[in-house]
């Protein structure tokens, strides 16, 4: 009889589950008005709220003149932005600049992407703004993003950042930070003894001393792994990390845990995300930072708009706002999250940041295509 009960209950549950979310991003009906590509060109100037205007008209207005005359979209509900940093400041900055409200959902990169994935049948976000470029690019392949649109402020992107915009223009880079500079405890190693290149980290003399964040969990750690795999080639890249694992490489879930391990002396050397490294130095920990001459793997923060958003105009205004030099300057000045290389010209970097800081990133296609395999490989290697 018990079996009968289960027999009756389970199929109902299975069928109900199957019925849930049968649709994904690509099959969403596009409820938002489809503005012309240049709609958000109106953005920086669009400080005055008026009734919704034809997008082409707004674009023309913005390109030519004063904000007061620009017709801006009317907001009926706050713009929902999924992000992993700057949650404390960005709503106020945007509100002050444009009068529009933003609600943020903050989580680490993986939590945010997971939430987006789980919501695929009915997305609740309008803009995603995280340092997971390859993940966001993959969303465009699933037809989840607005594509073919470039913000007006993209004209001011640095050459490095311009090269990061993919052909389908699904996302805009807002900043790049080093996913992993080399840091070492200077009470354990002298400058002469310390490693200066990533290759040296696979040296026997640093056995059991090196740590890094998990590419599967920490948003900046995947670009780091992807860079080596792309730069050295997939096999040679795996060989490099295998050697490090053989020598006792310790993988921690996120960068702050790498910091904790460094501070406690559990490890003496790490490949560490740059703001965490500078935070350690500023809090008085005995840490030195090495920026390798060949460049440090960079993690690119990008902003992209959900294809299902009902506020596409305001979303575009938001993305364009992120590419404003003034906005990026304010983000640099926020404090501990402000260690990054802005994506646009005309922004003054943090004084403490090394003048010779050079960044390098893996190819988008390579990073996006190999993401699942590289992360699974890393997870298994670190468990052995």
């Amino acid at each position, binding site marked *: 009889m018990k079996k009968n009960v289960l027999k009756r209950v389970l199929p109902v549950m299975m069928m109900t*589950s*199957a019925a849930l979310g049968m649709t994904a991003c690509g099959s969403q009906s596009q409820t938002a008005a489809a503005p012309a590509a240049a709609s958000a060109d109106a953005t920086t100037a669009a400080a005055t709220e008026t009734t919704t205007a034809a997008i082409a008209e707004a674009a023309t207005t913005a390109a030519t003149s004063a904000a007061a005359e620009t017709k801006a979209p009317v907001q009926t509900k*706050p713009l929902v932005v999924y992000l992993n940093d700057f949650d404390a400041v960005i709503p106020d900055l945007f509100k002050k600049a444009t009068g529009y409200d933003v609600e943020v959902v903050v989580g680490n990169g993986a939590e945010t992407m997971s939430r987006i*994935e789980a*919501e695929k049948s009915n997305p609740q976000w309008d803009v995603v703004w995280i340092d997971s470029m390859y993940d966001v690019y993959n969303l465009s392949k699933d037809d989840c993003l607005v594509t073919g649109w470039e913000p007006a402020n993209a004209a001011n992107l640095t050459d490095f950042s311009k090269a990061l915009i993919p052909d389908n223009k699904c996302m805009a880079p807002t900043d790049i930070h080093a996913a992993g500079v080399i840091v070492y405890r200077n009470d354990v190693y002298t400058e002469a003894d310390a490693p200066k290149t990533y290759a040296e980290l696979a040296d026997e003399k640093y056995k059991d001393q090196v740590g890094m964040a998990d590419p599967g969990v920490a948003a900046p750690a995947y670009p780091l792994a992807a860079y080596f795999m792309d730069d050295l080639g997939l096999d040679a890249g795996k060989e490099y990390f295998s050697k490090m694992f053989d020598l006792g490489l310790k993988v921690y879930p996120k960068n702050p845990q790498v*910091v904790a391990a460094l501070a406690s*002396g559990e490890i003496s050397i790490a490949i560490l995300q740059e703001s965490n490294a500078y935070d350690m130095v500023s809090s008085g920990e005995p840490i030195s930072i090495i920026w390798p001459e060949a460049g440090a793997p960079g993690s690119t923060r990008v902003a992209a708009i959900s294809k299902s958003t009902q506020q596409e105009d305001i979303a575009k205004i938001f993305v364009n706002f992120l590419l404003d030099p003034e906005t990026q300057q304010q983000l640099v000045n926020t404090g501990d999250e402000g260690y990054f290389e802005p994506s646009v010209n005309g922004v003054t970097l943090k004084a403490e940041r090394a003048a010779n800081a050079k960044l390098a990133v893996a190819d988008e296609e390579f990073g996006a295509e190999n993401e699942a395999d590289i992360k699974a490989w890393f997870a298994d290697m670190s468990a052995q």
Partner: protein
Amino acid sequence: MKFKKNTADHVILLILMILVLLPLAAVLFQIVCPGLQAKKFNLKNMLLLGDVFVRPLWKRAFLDSLFLSVGTTVLGLILAAFLAHIRVSYDFAGAKLLDIASWILMIVPSFILAQGWVYFSSGNGIASSWLGMKGISSFVFSYWGLVTVMVLCKYPMAYVAIKAAMEWYPARLISAARMNGASSFQAWKSVQLPLCIPAYCSAAMLIFMDTVGDYGMSSTITAVYSFPTLPYTIYSAICSSPARFDMAGVLSVYLMIMIVLAMFIQFKAMGKGRYDFLDNGTEKVMQKKVKPVQAAFLSIVAGAFMVLSLGIPIGSNLIMSFSDSISIRRFQFTFENYKSVFAAGSSLKSGILHSLSLALISAFFGIIVGFCVAYVLTYSKTRLKKAIDMTTLIAMAVPGVVLGIGYIFVWNQKWLGYVGLHLYGKPAILVLASVASAIPLINRVLVGGMAKVPESLLIAAEIQGAGFWERIRTVLLPLLHNSTVSATLAAFGGSVFNLAITTILYPPNYSTLPVFISDSYNDLKFGIAAAATIVGAVFIIGIMLLLELLLNIKVIREKAEKSGKAVKQGLRTSHPAENI
């Protein structure tokens, strides 16, 4: 009447299905249908189930969880039984400390206890830097160290269950055994000990399930120190990119297999015997008076245990809340962390308010559902009993992160918006998920209480003409007063700090206390995390004391009146079931 009873059983099962099974099924179904997208449906994906013995991470996580849970269950049961024995059997000044420590540990979430242990044991922590105990770090972050920390966090539910069983002495049955020639030991072995089997089995299951499904401890200690467990690996599968819900489903299956096996062992151990022994032949165990030296020794043991289990993690949080550095080695006293917590722009205040309101609502609904579930499990003859029991156990073991993702799939359907039930992105979904998480604990506490109230008492009341609600109101509720208060408080405390659920499901701009603490900790703002913990704990303990007072106010009045009458009449009242 039968129709009504059957309907009630079905309604309860339906509620549990909506709260627990449906979200879980939504995740499990991902194994064959990733993302619940019809185009991805493929039965061959079932082969993933075999990967647990192939993929190094999965294999390791499975074995780590198994060994950690078994080790914690065995040692936790021994510890709980020992503490319950000395608490019930001997009269000594520090006895209450054991109860206090257990209740606080039951309410404080494992991630906060784990954070405390990290502050204490890490290489630059309190033990090493201030106490010169260099070996603590390597011990705590080893298998036996993790088992020790787990035991100290997880024993309380077992302690409460065993203590409740040991408080009553089946005097009439023992006398019968002795009159039939049994020695004192034989009577204990053949009567008293077997009657405790349900309590020991239940205690072991509570520890095992709480350990095997624990996410807070896993995410804070075990994952960081290269000891991956299933809950954390499930979290990594879900919160990885690309998200692997199918992998999370596979690992959840193995988690459930472990629980089903544990239930099977419990079922075999209990057999088909009857264990309701509370009647007018039952006496409350009288605590033995011991010599002052022995009493002092027992008090010292209780005090030392309280320091070890509660003092270290909570004390470490307190110390860290005044530290201006993440390293205790560089400790400098500061109030800055508390200032940050109370700063105008701090989201902690709204976080505390949100968490408290959620917990109050969850405790209210949780106790109603939990009471109904416990009643059905104890007194109903329904065929659905096993399914209901199994569902409550599954709810306890399924990691909150799995439940949370399942809730997104279930409650983020477009069509729900048309009927006003699109709860995802609203605080209501946190209430539902918190009720689902609270039910197992409420249920265990109430079932434990109800198991000792024979159905004959209710039947007697029915024969006297009492209707169903009157029987509940005049017989069951008074007898279960203490259990109900305990269950409500435990549900309230547990809901306030429900980290996994709130991390996954919190609505935009809706801060909660556990997320604030966990985020601060993960951002290495140890001082702020610790200060928020202390501030939050003070608020919550205050509210719980108030709740307890309110819930007990009638009893306190009655006791006062009774004792007044007793003094006047020179009589002593005794009602063995009063203190259940």
